[in-house]
């Protein structure tokens, strides 16, 4: 599982973290991502870096579904503490091959207690 804990653009962690996820997707491992704390800002919709001249990697989140990375867990408390709702996030979706290619959201809201349990179930945790 890849855990994102930092806001985008202020540091390179989110960007270089996403590169790991995309490369890792080729390894046929079951992967998921978690967004905790300022990490939830990674998924904020309408990011536009044209004014600061840095690479806008936010769009790459939309490519995750093509790499079969379709489980993005967002901690509910982190969203609420920051005055955000799931409607403020990028609408990331995938087509569920096991369910008639139905379009489903890649984003799953998860409360803090359940996320803690989910961490316990991981083989490896990489954080950015």
């Amino acid at each position, binding site marked *: 599982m890849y855990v994102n804990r930092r806001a985008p653009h202020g540091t390179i*962690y989110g960007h*270089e973290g996403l590169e*790991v996820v995309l490369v*890792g997707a*080729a*390894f046929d491992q079951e992967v998921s991502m978690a967004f905790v704390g300022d990490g939830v800002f990674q998924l904020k919709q309408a990011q536009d870096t044209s004014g600061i001249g840095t690479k806008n990697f936010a769009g790459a989140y939309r490519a995750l579904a093509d790499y079969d990375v379709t489980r993005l867990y967002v901690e509910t408390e982190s969203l609420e503490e920051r005055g955000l709702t799931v409607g403020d996030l990028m609408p990331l979706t995938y087509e569920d091959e096991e369910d008639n290619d139905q379009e489903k959201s890649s984003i799953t809201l998860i409360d803090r207690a359940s996320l803690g349990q989910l961490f316990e179930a991981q083989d*490896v*945790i*990489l954080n950015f």
Partner: protein
Amino acid sequence: MKFALMINQGPYTHQASDTAYHFACAVLKAGHEVFRIFFYHDGVNNATRMTTPPQDDRHVIDRWSELASQHKLDLVVCVAAAQRRGILDEDEARRHGKDGDNLAPGFRISGLGQLIEAGIEADRFLVFGN
């Protein structure tokens, strides 16, 4: 037990590389294997042989090189992160038309697949300097 470490901060500004070094020594002392140490983000700055600290300070880079040679460690620097930060081996320097390379002995430059592989292969995976 097979250990893999990831180091994400450069030397001297952050303690991460020091902690990882002391931890790696303790891992080896305990009789475990260090499968790979992967340098990412600013951690790639641990791999430049141009580093020249004052004589009364520890030499973080040489220390890694020496440990690698003593224990045949696999020190891997992410190629994309390294190029962003000006860490180049001979081949990369030539390919990009640079007038010099700076990769320290004992390190090699490779891709992120090496990190993923380390996560899969190792029994224990630790991140320093996140």
